[in-house]
């Protein structure tokens, strides 16, 4: 008998190719949801062989994304979720050395994604400097910057939201709708990359297909950056 957590349907198991090699109609696998278990609020480390020599502690909810809680009970009311202390600003200050590869940075006023960070110094005994190689998240243009590690710089707040395409106008204006049914009509098909607009149109095929897209926003700019065509019914 299998453990209940392991009742996994391996999709390829029942997927036998037909003579014609057509695709299997079985749906994607259904995995267990691993976050269904309550999170560990406390831990108790025991020496595995000696019960007398054990260490234990009571879990204390600390500040992670919320204001720090003073004890281990984790009721909803204790959380005060904030999107950092940036207020209404579209950027937040950060020390150059704290920016990670894959993170974001403002270079020459443009919101950029960091592709690579190398550390250098002037002279053998100089202090560390960060050399950022990044791309503008909206135009793909390569930008570079050099900042001493301990100096401050600014990081854009980048948001990505998922929408379904409802309509595409002749001039590229797009009507989008999210899961909650909210509509968005203030956005056009992207001009970068050059081919993406046409690819979205082709995928959408005048409403024949269901196409969802990712809208990325930062420093007041919004742009579609990715799209996917939902699987055809029955496939």
């Amino acid at each position, binding site marked *: 008998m*299998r453990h209940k957590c*392991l009742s996994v349907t*391996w999709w*390829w198991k029942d*997927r*036998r190719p037909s003579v014609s*090699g057509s695709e299997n109609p079985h749906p994607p696998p259904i995995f267990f949801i*691993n*976050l269904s*278990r309550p*999170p*560990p*609020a406390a*831990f108790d480390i025991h*020496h595995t062989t*000696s019960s007398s020599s054990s*260490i234990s*502690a009571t*879990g*204390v909810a*600390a*500040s*992670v*994304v*919320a204001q*720090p809680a*003073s004890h281990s009970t984790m009721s*909803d009311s204790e*959380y005060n*979720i904030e*999107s*950092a202390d940036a207020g209404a600003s579209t950027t937040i200050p950060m*020390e150059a*050395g*704290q920016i*990670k590869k*894959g*993170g974001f940075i403002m270079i020459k006023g443009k919101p950029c994604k960091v*592709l690579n960070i190398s550390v*250098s*110094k*002037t*002279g*053998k*005994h*100089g*202090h*560390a400097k960060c050399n950022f190689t990044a*791309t503008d998240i909206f135009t*793909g*243009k390569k930008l570079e910057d050099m900042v001493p590690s*301990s100096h401050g710089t600014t990081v854009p707040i980048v948001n990505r*939201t998922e929408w379904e395409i409802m309509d595409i106008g002749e001039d590229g204006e797009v009507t989008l709708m999210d899961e909650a049914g909210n509509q968005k009509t203030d956005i056009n098909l992207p001009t970068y*990359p050059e081919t993406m607009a046409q*690819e979205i149109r082709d*995928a959408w095929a005048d409403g024949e297909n269901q196409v969802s897209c*990712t809208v990325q926003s930062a420093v007041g700019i919004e742009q579609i950056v*990715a*799209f996917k*065509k939902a699987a055809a019914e029955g496939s």
Partner: protein
Amino acid sequence: MEGATQELLQILSSAPPTPTGTAAQSSPPHNLNPIALLHYNLERLRESGDERYLFLRCLLELLSGGGSSGTSNISVDEEERLLYHCIAGIRHTTLHQWDYRTQSYKCCLRDFLFAVGLGMLDNDYHRGNTNGNFGGAGNGNRSRGPLPKSVTMACLSCAASMWKRGWTTDHNNNDSINGDGPHQSSLLEKDDGQSYLESIMTSLLPSMIQFKGDRSMELLFEYLDRRISDAFHASAVVDMPQRYKLQHEATMSATFVKLLVGEFAALGVGGGYEQSPEFHRLCHRIFEFGSGGGDDVVEGQWCGLDAAMRTSMTALASLAKQILDNGGTSPKDEELGSCIIDVATDVLSWEFGASGRDPSAVSRRNHQNDAGGGAGLLLRPPRKWRDVLINPEFMGAMFRVYMAVRTSPSSSSNERGRMAHRLRQLLLQLSSVTGNAIFDDEREQGAYASFLMEGCLNVLESILEDQRLLQQQQQGELSMYLEQLGDEIVDLVAMLSRLTANFKVHILSQLSSFHRYLSALRAVGEWLLDSSLVECQRVEGDVESMEGADWRNDAIAQILHCSDAMAGDYWLASDAGGQEAMDVLRALSSILAPLYGRYCRVRSRISCLEEHYLAREGGTDLDEIREEISASGLNEEMSSAASLGRLNVLASMSTLSEMFQQCMPRLLSLFEGAGMGGDMTPDMAVILEEARILLLFVGHLLTDDCVGETPSIPESIVNACRPSRGVETSESCASSIVTLIGALQSVAEAQATKVAAYPADPRLSPLLAKTLLWFFCRWAPAYILPTSDEYSDTTGGGILSTYSKPEIAQPVISFCSTLCLVYFCHWPQEKEVQDECTSLLLALAKKGAFVRGLMVNSPSFEKIAALHSVCGSLRHNASQQELSSAMTTAMGADLSIDVVMGYHRLPYAERARVLTCLVVACSEMHCEKSIVMLNSCLRAVEAPFSTLVQALLNKQVRSDDANAQESACLFILLYGGIVLASEMSEPERIPHFITPSLPHLSGLMTYYAEDLTICEGLLRLFRDYAEQYIAMMTREQSIELFTASATLLRHYSERHCKNRVIHKRSEVEEEFDEEQKYNDVLCAIQLLIHLGTKDFTVVCNMSTSSFNGVETGQITDVIFFGLQQVLPLMTQGLLQFPTLCQYYFSLVGFMVETYPEKLCGLPFDLFNSLLESLLFGMSHSDALVAKSSLQGLASLAREHLRSQALLPHLSTKADIFDNCSYRLMKEVVFQPIIWDRLEPAGMAFLPLAAIDFQKFIGLVNVVSQQLGCGEKQRRLHTAFEELIKPDMLSKVAAEGREGRFVRLQFKNAFNVFVRDVHSFLVMR
């Protein structure tokens, strides 16, 4: 015959014909420029076999002077080029069509080219011989000088190749190798064209010697001997042209011997012979032993190598006599002399015994030579050469000749330099002679070494004397003199180094010249160092423009290598040498060791000058790669120098202490100025650099790195401080170490104190801080409570006990902790410093319970733990209010907000490393304080993580919230840090702690799979956890890991492997994406491999009454699922990464071999991807990859044989197995790479053949038809018939004894088969 030149020129310049029909695949390139066209046409003509002998006809016409007749009027340069191309063409076509040429023609052509190469054609012309007019071409004769060297060399090279090609036939008439079957020869003897060409060659060059009959090779060498010796009798000839002619012929004869030895020595390189490796090995063997290719070597049998050796030595003796008689050399003598010395060097360099009959031995030997470094430099000549080589007169004469040549006034310095260089190469070869075969005993070795050493020392001393004299003259003359001497000094020092490596200290120390040798090493070393410093001062630190820096550095490296070899000699290091060894050690200590002091001073001064120059020029960023290479070189040099310094520890310590005392006041004064502002000046940089270099000297001298283990105290330091060695000396030695360490601590403290106050001040060098931490990271684990078992001093006294008492060790540990604390809080962004800090803490924590106890008792360490508890889990963008709030929860330590804010700035990865150190250091179970600190640190991670998870679950926070994302990233790193603490005491506690969090960690992939940083971090965390703890996990913990890993991989694959989301990337992004893809895929593969380990499967599979186990099949399913996801990602581009490739094939090989039925059931696309990767892997250069691939292929084929599992796939693509078999044959079995994968290839070959034997036979027919030659086709068919017996095929898939027996039988047969087919299929 007439007009051959014109015809050839016409062909070479005409546009290539347009191919028709199926020949389109070999269509010529369009729009060829004239040069490309020429080469294309030449190649075409060569490949076509030159049926009309156009190359030879043209050569003969040009040589007879008829080339310029008629309409084609070619220039001298064009004629030279054409001659060269003709000879190259003749070489190619003759070697390739050897079997289709008559024996008589081949001999005639070979001897004709040989004669032309020697210059005999010119002689005939000089004598006014008109027989050269042939075929009516004589009317266009023109007067012409000697043939150009390129042409004569090409002729000799072609003749040498033809001698090699025919050598085996003449020795043993081995038809199978050469294909000169009697029936062929008898047919070809009737070729009229060849007879006609023979007659023309003979008439053109009537004085040509023809070497025929059984003794042709002997005759050849006799002739060459005569030619060379004639030159030394030429002084009696009055007629100058005749004299030069003799010398020229001798030079060309010596060159020919060199070419011949070179041709036969070439085992592994392609020479355009289109012959099997067996042919080349056989030639090598016959040339070396003279036997007919059998295993038995007949004593006294004539062989080419001995003949070449005799020729070269006889010539060398004559050359020596002439030079010594004349007191020098003339330019003509030098050319001949250089050729003779080259022959001797090449003969000595012969790879003895390399012609073994095992083909795989060649690749093994090459591998060993690559890896063995210096081991391949020694020569082991046969005993029969003993009389020649182990001859004092010969050795003495060589050095006398060398002295005469290097001081010869009658020739230019360049020519003199060339010949002297060749002589030094010969002497270097002689220094490398070793082996029991050639030396009877140690006495003989000593005598031999003595000759070489004294000769070498005489030259070196004379050089030193000369430079002393010149130093008193003008500087300009000295530098020019030194420039010329560079190569000579490097060679001479290399010779001494080779002698040291070859004859070892035990033999060398018995020589009367041993002390002289040590003195010379020191004198040369000091002179080189001093002259380097002078040169560096001249260029004011611009080391790039230093003249002679390279050769000086090479020579110094050789001297350090010498001293390192002597200091590390087993005879000296062990007690085996007794009093004798002690005396030698004393000599080394008193004579050679003082060089260390000079080395330190000069090296430090040069570094300071260089730093001054760099700081003065300033402003540019350093090139990271160049710095890394330079640091690696410096590290290697300092390790060698440390061996020298350890020869006299006390003297070396006093030198370093003195240098440090001079540097320290300036350094402390510099630190005092911190906070006063200003930029880094060159003078500041000099002080910092001086201190850094000194630290490196001390670090290397006092500690051995022991990579991968705890650093140790060098045995020589322990011995020097051992009380029994003399109380006074040992005490002063130990106290000098203690004093120096104290001084270093005060420097580190001074800098750290200032860093706390003025972290941005340029006077405070991160590099110096890093070096200080590096020093303590090596020194502290070695010297604090050293493990006495590791040292020969079993008393545990002296330096071994100095830092072993808690009251002495505690302040040192506290000091190290404080240093780290300061740098954590005040230089959080100096990554290199942070890396060293965590390395230091971890090195101490891993040292054992004693040091862990001291660490926990250190207030600074306690503070680090408290800091981690307060802000280790806080995001960088946490507000000050959050920080203050966190501080209120801190227990124990007295923390200021500044310190907390500083530590909070530490990069997440560094925090994780600190956490690893904390967990290991606080892991002692019996210490209450440790337990509290450990709990505090772990709680600081676990509690906020649970809060984050709860918030995500309850949707109190959006997963795309920047703070939540950053927190997730931080926690993954922190858990990763905990996981890496497997070297703690009682590490079983880690799985106990981690297990409850595993589902939540893997659950983060649900939200953040798209973020490559988080995704890769999670995969790495799970991989590390599995890697470190699988062996110690309980069943429940294993099941949790399995479950969490399955979820993780599923979410990972959904985002990264299904490729449904179209996200356009810029080109710049693509460039960096590959590397990232590589890392996360690698982690995923490694995790899958760990999950597939037997321990894990067995533990998961056990069932208890309380908890059901995991079926093995489920684990397999997860691994298979992971493999499926990874398969499409494994592009050829990614497989270029060696590590990734190895792991991928390791996983694939394991799974295919263990669960072939599951792989056969994969959807076709995936199966095809897998198969393609296996086919790609089977011919991979990495043998492990190839073996895994071939085993995988074999398993698939066997599975199909057993259960017809691939029938569904075969209905989609019918030629799956045909393609596999064909590619296996073409890309592996018939290729030279087969030898390191012979067995797995055979095991794949057998079931593939057995699946459908009729189809397989068809495939063999296809392959054999591609061979063209009927004889080869026949041999291939025969070989296959021998290999595959129909009755064998029916039992291929059988289990048990029967199946095993068949496979074993096939394995042996396959070995024979491969050898057989390679003997005629693989061509070089």
